[in-house]
């Protein structure tokens, strides 16, 4: 049981082209005749099949362009990703999507509920769609050209009525048969008007006249021969966009499209059982410029509402440069969802997963508002100079700790840069002369580049603070380097 969805105005509606408003008359052109016309052009009398000159005379402001197969393919792939939730047997055709829904009927309580969800989904996205239903892929494609409502093709059990489909096919004009123009003309000269009349002829005669391909075509159409198709596989990256055609000028208005895109991402990640580690937002403006906003995320499972809050937090400080034409969300880096084990006895839990989840959530929030380098953890290095013994590492980085037990006295506060102290009678002064208590502890290091020889002392300042000062033995100067907090 195959369902076919054709999108007649997909390219015209979704991609109006640079600098063209959606309500201006437009048409797609192939070999100097109109292929498709949008609503405004149709209102002016332009119909598919007319020649360019006729169309121009009917509608002087008509803007024509050639169809772009790549763009169509990209649009179809996005729609296929959405339609993938209904059935895994999904194929892309140049004009639409082909779905084998036989296996999904039980899940959706029969064909009609599934069909209604389909219609609702495309109506919500304002994509005009034409449906066809058949017992073979080709039959479904051809039925979509007829004006009959496909619910009349169902029997009283809600299943496909094969005879009704064959009856419908028999009455379809021959011009919808997907064969070469030469063959179409031959069929016309033979006086064959409907597909049923063609099929009634002996197939051996048809093979002799039109080649073996033609009888295969008919067999496939009537479901006598198998028609294997290449099924659609969801891509390994996420890409989705929303077009606004310049109607969007304020950042607050982005909330709903962002929520919709995150909903798609959520669905994609569930499908793949992945979590994303990065989100790249792209704002494309009407003048062709674009802005990108990339943000790291460190969650363990996707929570759409939390992601939305995070994006809105990031957008608070982001200023749009002009009216937005398109919003694009891309994700390339993914990780498999970490499966976790919960403890049977909660009080014995060694690792609190929920707490860790909240920890990751607050990390994301902080990084979104304060910047990526505002949060860090200390990591120890095996260096001797005090300012080099610690490095900053990202809280989620997997660098191992090279923990080093140090037995010598170290201050709790280290100044980010050693502060030069003035010297009075050989004694360092910090506002007032310091009283040296103990030392020196010599650190002589880096003889291979800039040699550092320092004698560290503990000293007491007049305020009562205990300071860690050193005398640079090469420069003969005193520095304050830390405080015993």
């Amino acid at each position, binding site marked *: 049981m195959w369902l076919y969805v054709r999108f007649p105005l997909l390219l015209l509606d979704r991609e109006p082209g640079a600098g063209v408003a959606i309500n201006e008359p437009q048409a797609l052109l192939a070999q100097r005749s109109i292929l498709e016309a949008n609503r405004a052009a149709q209102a002016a009398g332009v119909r598919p099949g007319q020649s360019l000159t006729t169309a121009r005379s009917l509608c002087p402001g008509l803007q024509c362009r050639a169809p772009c197969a790549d763009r169509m393919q990209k649009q179809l792939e996005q729609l296929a990703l959405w339609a993938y939730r209904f059935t895994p047997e999904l194929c892309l055709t140049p004009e639409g999507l082909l779905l084998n829904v036989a296996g999904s009927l039980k899940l959706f309580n029969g064909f009609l509920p599934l069909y209604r969800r389909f219609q609702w989904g495309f109506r919500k996205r304002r994509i005009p769609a034409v449906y066809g239903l058949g017992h073979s892929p080709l039959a479904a494609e051809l039925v979509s050209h007829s004006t009959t409502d496909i619910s009349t093709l169902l029997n009283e059990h809600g299943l496909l009525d094969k005879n009704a489909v064959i009856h419908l096919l028999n009455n379809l004009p021959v011009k919808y048969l997907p064969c070469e123009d030469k063959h179409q003309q031959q069929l016309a000269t033979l006086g064959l008007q409907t597909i049923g009349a063609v099929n009634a002829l002996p197939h051996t005669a048809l093979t002799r006249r039109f080649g073996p391909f033609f009888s295969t075509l008919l067999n496939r159409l009537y479901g006598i021969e198998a028609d294997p198709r290449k099924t659609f596989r969801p891509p390994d990256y996420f890409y989705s966009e929303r077009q606004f055609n310049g109607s969007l000028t304020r950042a607050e208005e982005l909330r709903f499209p962002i929520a919709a895109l995150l909903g798609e991402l959520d669905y994609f990640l569930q499908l793949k059982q992945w979590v994303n580690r990065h989100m790249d937002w792209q704002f494309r403006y009407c003048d062709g410029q674009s802005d990108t906003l990339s943000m790291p995320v460190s969650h363990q499972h996707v929570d759409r509402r939390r992601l939305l809050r995070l994006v809105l937090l990031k957008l608070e400080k982001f200023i749009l440069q002009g009216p937005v034409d398109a919003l694009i969300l891309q994700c390339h880096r993914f990780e498999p969802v970490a499966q976790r084990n919960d403890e049977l006895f909660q009080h014995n839990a060694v690792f609190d997963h929920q707490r860790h989840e909240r920890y990751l959530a607050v990390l994301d929030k902080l990084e979104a*508002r304060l910047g990526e380098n505002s949060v860090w*953890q200390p990591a120890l290095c095996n260096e001797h100079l005090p300012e080099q013994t610690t490095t900053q590492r990202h809280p989620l980085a997997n660098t191992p700790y090279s923990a080093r037990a140090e037995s010598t006295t170290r201050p709790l*506060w280290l100044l980010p840069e050693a502060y030069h102290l003035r010297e009075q009678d*050989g004694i360092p002064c910090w506002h007032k002369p310091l009283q040296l208590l103990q030392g020196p502890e010599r650190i002589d290091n880096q003889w291979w580049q800039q040699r550092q020889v320092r004698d560290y002392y503990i000293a007491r300042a007049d305020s009562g603070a205990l300071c860690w000062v050193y005398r640079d033995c090469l420069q003969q100067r005193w520095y304050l380097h830390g405080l015993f907090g």
Partner: protein
Amino acid sequence: MSHLSKLLQNPQLWRSGRRNQAAGHNSIGTGLRRLDQALHSRGWPLAGSTELLCDHFGLGELSLLTPALAQLSQQQAIVWLNPPFEPYAPALQQAGINLEHCLFVHCNGLSDQLWAAEELLRATAFAAVLNWSDNSKLADRDLRRLQLAAREQQCWHIHFRAAATAQHSSPAPLRIGLTSQNKQLQLNVLKQAGGPAGQQLLIARAAHLLHEQKPPEYWPQHTGNSKSRLLLARLPRVKTPLDAGVELH
């Protein structure tokens, strides 16, 4: 009668002359017996704001907290929000603090800091948030928000503020002024929940820090002209086992 006994057990009710027993339920020992005795909660309160008011650093203000922080950091995370200098990781490790559970956050501007502090307190992912405010005056409303966040989410908010703010009122249930007094750290309890305040304590600094190693005449002398030679301290000759003729292999 039962109403009265119920009322008497309310931890919010302050009764003069008697310690409130309920206040000590959620606290962690300070590591100093005298300080534990002086605080009605028998230790640092683990929920709500604790204000430490000091103008100078290096008085021992961090080592006052390290025993409690070391205990907390074994299981749960601790955040350091806008510390005035870099907390030196080897020293933190020496004090027993688990570095893997330490998180440092830096932000610019008062509004960002208040936002970050409240987010961290409300996250219920951290045992303690150490927060350093510079001299800017915080509104009572902001302090109350932080105190409420800390109390509701059972997080210890350690708020370092300037000594001058002792004059202003604050919603924090525990406020301690820190000064240096004759080589010791003086604690002046300005306010505490569950009983009278006004306790004054002197806490000695660690003995190994104050140990005066050598008389000043042994410090290195600066002669001025000899730049190439290193001037080393003339250490007093001490008899070591090496001098006694122990052979090293």
